[in-house]
């Protein structure tokens, strides 16, 4: 059983609007609502690929009830802590003509000390059955910057592999606890370490710095079609075709889910990279951001191009 931790889950509302422009009124040609947030997406993708997980974090209000019900309806276990307020909604505007997505996100409910205490009580009880833990995304107001670090510390004490993706101070603190895999979005890498978007050499330097601290894998997105993997066997740049991609909304989460499965199935380093990138390829070419099948992923493995740097 795997555990996913989403401190700030959301309802993802995707409005399809042709030729969207700010400042005008539009009627959406299609509206899709689904539970979202990094860990929630990972749980959904894991389930579609045949792996059970428990989705955890904090939920609030009617939005929170909707998120829990939708996750449970997909056959995924839940163990969220309820807090006052309202879980957030992420509004995506997908322009099917311009092929661009606009996101408006809100900050989420306030999470107090009692809720944090309860969360860690739950986590301690789930960990004896856990084979991997994933955590990521933004922190809602009230959660301390060392929230991920605290969760990683507990999991690593039990030798459970931890996959983390976040940004800013919470990620810096998380790295101190030496998670197994750190995934960093290149846009946030630029903010965190002042690294140019196009400078692969700089990205390698920064990844190597984190790797040298004791993290097993560093994965950094590189433009929208590649990921840089920093591993014990060297650096790899993996690329997929994105020309006909429908959405990049859960691309990173499908990569994480793929890496978790690859580790569970004891794949080697290059197979792990190919499998997780194939998960991304299938995900971004699906109409629904979290729709993916094992059969299609297996077919897509051959389409992943890997270059050892």
């Amino acid at each position, binding site marked *: 059983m795997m555990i996913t931790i989403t401190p700030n889950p959301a309802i993802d509302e995707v409005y399809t609007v042709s030729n969207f422009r700010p400042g005008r009124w539009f009627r959406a040609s299609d509206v899709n609502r689904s539970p979202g947030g990094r860990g929630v997406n990972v749980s959904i993708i894991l389930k579609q690929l045949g792996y059970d997980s428990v989705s955890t974090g904090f939920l609030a209000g009617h939005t929170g009830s909707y998120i829990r019900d939708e996750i449970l309806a997909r056959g*995924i*276990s*839940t*163990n969220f802590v*309820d807090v006052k307020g309202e879980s957030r909604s992420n509004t995506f505007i997908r322009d099917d003509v311009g092929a661009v997505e606009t996101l408006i996100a809100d900050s989420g409910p306030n999470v107090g000390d009692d809720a944090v205490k309860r969360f860690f*009580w739950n986590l301690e*009880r*789930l960990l*004896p*059955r856990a084979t991997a833990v994933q955590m990521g995304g933004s922190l809602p107001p009230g959660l301390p910057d060392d929230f991920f670090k605290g969760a990683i510390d507990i999991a690593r004490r039990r030798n459970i592999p931890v996959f983390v993706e976040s940004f800013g101070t919470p990620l810096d603190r998380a790295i101190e606890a030496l998670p197994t895999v750190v995934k960093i979005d290149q846009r946030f890498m630029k903010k965190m370490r002042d690294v140019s978007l196009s400078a692969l050499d700089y990205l390698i330097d920064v990844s190597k710095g984190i790797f040298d601290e004791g993290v097993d894998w560093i994965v950094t997105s590189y433009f929208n079609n590649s990921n840089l993997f920093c591993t014990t066997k060297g650096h790899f740049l993996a690329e997929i075709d994105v020309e006909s991609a429908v959405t990049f909304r859960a691309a990173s989460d499908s990569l994480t889910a793929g890496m978790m499965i690859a580790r569970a199935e004891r794949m080697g380093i290059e197979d792990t990279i190919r499998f997780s990138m194939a998960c991304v390829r299938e995900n971004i070419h699906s109409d629904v951001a979290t729709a993916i099948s094992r059969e299609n992923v297996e077919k897509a493995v051959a389409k992943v191009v890997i270059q050892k740097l």
Partner: protein
Amino acid sequence: MMLVRDIMERDLTSLSEETPLLEAMALIVTHKTGGLPVLDNNSRVVGFLSEGDVLKAAIPGYLGYMDENFAAPDVGKINARVKRVGDDPARNYMTKGALVFDENETVSNALVALFKRNVRVAPVIKNGSLVGIVNREEILRGFVQNNFGDGEES
């Protein structure tokens, strides 16, 4: 054959034996459930705290009071009682030896057991660990879905 694991709700919200009664009440209300499993430090189900257990704690001797006097207890007294017992641990009020199902139990056996024990909701375990809860409503929903597809009227 329909099994408990096919219809159970996979929510793992639970209480520790030390959870204060007031916090337990809030969790039961928030989750709109008939009660919650109580776990020990090894995550084993050691009891179940139902809404009935909680209400009994808030209104001690309620039934006896009604039988003998036909008078409702004063709300202020109930609130005072809730405040007084609110910090007490869940273990003081939970049902020990509560009904627990293995996830591979058949739904029909579960339904019979729920009626025999006169309970609405019970925890479900796999290899001794909590994996969900089952209640009469979910069993009913399972039967409806089996007989009417998605179980919704058009």
